């Protein structure tokens, strides 16, 4: 597992108030997980966390002292634990135990599959994930909804598992993903076979609303393609298979109508689009059949997604007939992916911008209590010293004493103004948490290690 050097932990002194110290300690933002980059699907599926298991898992994690907040993001391409932790090493051990238990593996076995990002890197990682920059298919849009769902599920099933930090982090992440999709074309184009099929059909017909399709063969790919086409507004879908009951099942699932296979090609003049996906070892549709069924007809799109091909290549030579096979769909996908890659720098810039904004908020939030403590300590010393001086003075009226106290306090505030502003500014830098930790130790221990 790739590791970042943990920040030095606070030194516990004998005269310390542990409750106060805990409230001042900087929580660490951490993500531990695995994805398509580090593990194959047969491994990833072992780590998958379903909703039924999520509640128990979150309760166990956030019930520990080291982890205050946790969101679990589990999709087919990744399983990641986003946590705010007070003791990074113990927390990491806890998360690893849970993951190993989930996958039914040893901790040492899973360690090489995992990655860990901390603080600013964790923020950037989540923002890249939600934008689709870390997806298997660059820019895929589903991850935005999956991140939103993970956040809602985690915050809904165990109260308190999502606190102020993760709430803000995930809101910022979703906003980042939205901006990336709105301002770049990272999610544009067809980066999957069904999407490529839709794009090809749309380039011929424009809108698919009201168009009619015929699916020959009730295979999984044909059904998936038809589902996507139906989502685009395709009106009537006819499903034909050599076994009518399979056609009936498939048509029920996609909301189409089963038709007998025997005279299926007679229906060519009733449809605008044909998806062929049978297991036939030879072409089942020839140019003569198309020509006789549609003499000089309107445009017809034929998607042959079977292997071996179901439609004779000569069909594509007919006027107003557009024939595409798997290789053609693959080329559309490749073109889209190439175009998306050109948008990567613009998307990365948006991610960096949003990560900086979040980081500024996050560190400023941590700097606040320390600055209050700094002021309290300084005011205590100032009050003690000035009271000592005033006790030794004689012939000074109470009114003048109060004036002296006020002048002393005002001087102190003026002296502290620049250091506190500087501290807040420096804290928002990348090494902010480390700086805050040093200041905390300075205030609590007088800087002793």
């Amino acid at each position, binding site marked *: 597992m790739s590791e970042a050097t943990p920040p030095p932990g606070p030194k516990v002194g004998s005269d310390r108030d542990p409750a106060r110290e805990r409230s001042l300690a900087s929580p660490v933002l951490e993500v531990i997980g695995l994805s398509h980059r580090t593990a194959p699907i047969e491994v990833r599926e072992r780590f998958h966390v379903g909703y039924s298991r999520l509640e128990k898992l979150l309760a166990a994690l956030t019930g520990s002292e080291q982890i205050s907040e946790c969101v679990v993001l589990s999709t087919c391409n990744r399983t990641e634990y986003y946590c705010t932790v007070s003791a990074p090493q113990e927390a990491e051990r806890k998360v690893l135990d849970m993951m190993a238990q989930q996958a039914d593996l040893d901790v040492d076995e899973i360690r090489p599959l995992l990655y860990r990002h901390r603080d600013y890197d964790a923020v950037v990682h989540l923002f890249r994930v939600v934008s689709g920059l870390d997806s298997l298919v660059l820019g895929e849009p589903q991850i935005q909804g999956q991140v939103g769902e993970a956040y809602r599920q985690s915050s809904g099933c165990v109260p308190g598992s999502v606190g102020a930090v993760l709430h803000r982090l995930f809101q910022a992440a979703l906003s980042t993903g939205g901006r990336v999709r709105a301002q770049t074309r990272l999610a544009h184009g067809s980066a999957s076979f069904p999407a490529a099929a839709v794009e090809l059909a749309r380039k011929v017909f424009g*809108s698919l609303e009201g168009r009619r399709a015929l699916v020959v063969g009730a295979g999984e790919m044909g059904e998936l393609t038809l589902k996507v086409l139906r989502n685009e507004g395709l009106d009537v879908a006819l499903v034909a298979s050599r076994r009518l009951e399979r056609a009936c099942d498939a048509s029920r699932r996609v909301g189409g109508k089963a038709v007998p296979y025997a005279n299926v090609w007679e229906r060519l003049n009733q449809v605008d689009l044909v998806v062929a996906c049978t297991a036939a070892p030879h072409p089942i549709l020839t140019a003569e059949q198309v020509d006789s069924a549609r003499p000089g007809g*309107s445009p017809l799109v034929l998607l042959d997604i079977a292997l071996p091909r179901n439609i004779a290549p000569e069909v594509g030579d007919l*006027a107003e007939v*557009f024939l595409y096979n798997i290789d053609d769909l693959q080329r559309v996908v490749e073109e889209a992916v190439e175009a998306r890659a050109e948008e990567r720098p613009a998307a990365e810039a948006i991610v960096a911008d949003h990560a900086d904004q979040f980081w500024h908020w996050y560190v400023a939030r941590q700097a606040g209590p320390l600055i209050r403590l700094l002021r309290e300590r300084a005011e205590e010393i100032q009050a003690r010293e000035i009271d000592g001086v005033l006790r030794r003075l004689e012939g000074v009226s109470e009114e003048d004493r109060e004036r002296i106290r006020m002048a002393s306090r005002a001087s102190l505030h003026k002296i502290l103004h620049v250091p506190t502003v500087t501290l807040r500014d420096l804290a928002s830098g990348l090494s902010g948490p480390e700086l805050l930790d040093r200041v905390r130790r300075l205030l609590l221990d007088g800087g002793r290690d």
Partner: protein
Amino acid sequence: MVLPLHLTAVGAYLAAWVVQLRGFRVRRAGRQGVELYVMAAAAAVHLTALIVFSFDTRTIPLVGLGPASSSLALIIVVVFLLTSSGAEARPAGLFVLPCVLLLLVEAIAVGLQPVARQTAFREPWFAFHVTSIFIGYAGLLLASAAALMYLMQFRALKRKQFGSVFRFFPSLDALEGLNRVGLLIGFPALSLGLLAGWSFTLTYGRGLALGDPEVVLGIVSWLAYLTAIASRRRRRWRGRRAAFVSAGAFAVTVTAYVVLRLTLTASGFFL
């Protein structure tokens, strides 16, 4: 003032065209239709230039090659903007804008001066005659741009070339629609314009001068249009065949114009 405004309009039209060319190169339509806004701004400047011209010269900018070319360019832009507000049709600007630029450059090159003509050429119905014909030509240009794009997109889809044309050009259905709209706007306008011109000659006691190059061009264009419309109506041609006829009609019109200018006119009055 007229010339600087024209030059500004040329610059803005050129900018809109460059935006479209860039979109074509990177295989996507411009974001939020920026080229349409630039074109609209250019059209506003262009219109201002023609209004200033009218005030300065006290003539309508429809007489004489320079002013008439400029007016025709403006009418083409207006027709394009009115028919292409839908995102799908925007890429047609790739073909329309060079024609607009060509007309404007021609107008500037030959000079934007008024031409001394008979009083009749200042009457409102003369303006109606010329404007109608110009709308007719604008419609024909739009239809032929859509037809050309249809043929290119058809070829890309047939040959499975998923490059710039496939990505940037609209769907065949949208291009077919734009072609139809261009013809439906242009043909009635051209017919009205020609009828008005005929009435004009009759009013002034002259017959239809079939040797007049303007009349010849009008009739050739109208017949070309009629063929395109008739092939759709009577022969029910759609898609590629309809696109071929539309593109052919435009080619015939342009060829007729060039031939007439080169062979029949020496006066410079003929548009």
